[in-house]
């Protein structure tokens, strides 16, 4: 199981990597913007991508569109402060698997990751 965490905040990447570790997903790559994210998703096979929206160089929503345009079906969860419904709809139309608004409770992100991977969220008890 290999995941990519995309966020311009190093601290948020660490928070998300912590959430992944609770699901025993320890093989995690990191990207700090949409450009890096597209490049890494092109070069690697991921089982899951966690994608911020607002980042320098390339927005997460644009990175998502490029990844989908490549035909990649990897689950992508948007994890963002963009909380407006129009943003959620835009992301889902672009091919996002799910959407998590920051700030979030730890059990929420773990549950959404589990659902995206088709796992049960029994690990929630560890949060």
């Amino acid at each position, binding site marked *: 199981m290999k995941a990519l965490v995309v966020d311009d905040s190093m*601290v*948020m990447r660490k*928070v998300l990597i912590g959430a992944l570790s609770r699901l025993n997903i320890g093989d995690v790559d990191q990207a700090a913007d949409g450009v890096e994210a597209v490049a890494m998703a092109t070069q690697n096979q991921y089982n899951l991508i966690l994608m911020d929206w607002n980042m320098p160089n390339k927005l997460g929503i644009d990175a998502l569109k490029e990844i989908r345009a490549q035909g990649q079906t990897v689950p992508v969860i948007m994890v963002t*402060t963009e909380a*407006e419904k129009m943003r959620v709809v835009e992301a889902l139309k672009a091919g996002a698997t799910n959407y998590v*608004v920051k700030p979030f409770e730890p059990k929420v992100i773990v549950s959404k990751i589990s659902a995206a991977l088709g796992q049960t969220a029994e690990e929630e008890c560890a949060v």
Partner: protein
Amino acid sequence: MNVQYINPFIESVSELFTTMFQKSATRGNIGTSKSVGENQDVVAMIGITGDVQGSVAVAMSEQTALKVVGSLLGCDIDEFGSDATDGVAEVVNMIAGGAKAKLPSQGLSPLQLSLPTVLRGKDFVVTYPTQSLWLDIPFESELGSFHLRVTLKNAQNN
């Protein structure tokens, strides 16, 4: 500045604490501040543009900043380094993002946020020639005290 604009930011602080930190933050009385950094060591700030323009900031002591970021990461942080800088930037990002989603209910079109900036020092002054008034909302929390500071004005008043 329309004081009603401040409520979404206050709500956003409370939501941040109850979700990410799973703690409470109690706010004090709204006042004003001459400068965004008044009496504080660390300020994380984001610019807002759209129907209203201005900035939102969180200002705190270095000790509080270390506890806040440590709580985010789930570990103790002893020095104000890149993690702390990045963490307080993310804190104001989440506060501004949450408020941004609520502000349209105040009759505003969706707003845009800048990327966050972090300032460090003691009693530094950031001068805003056309926006000299910062609303100041003090908060107390288990992680320490901090201030939410907001300056906004209607764009058509430029």
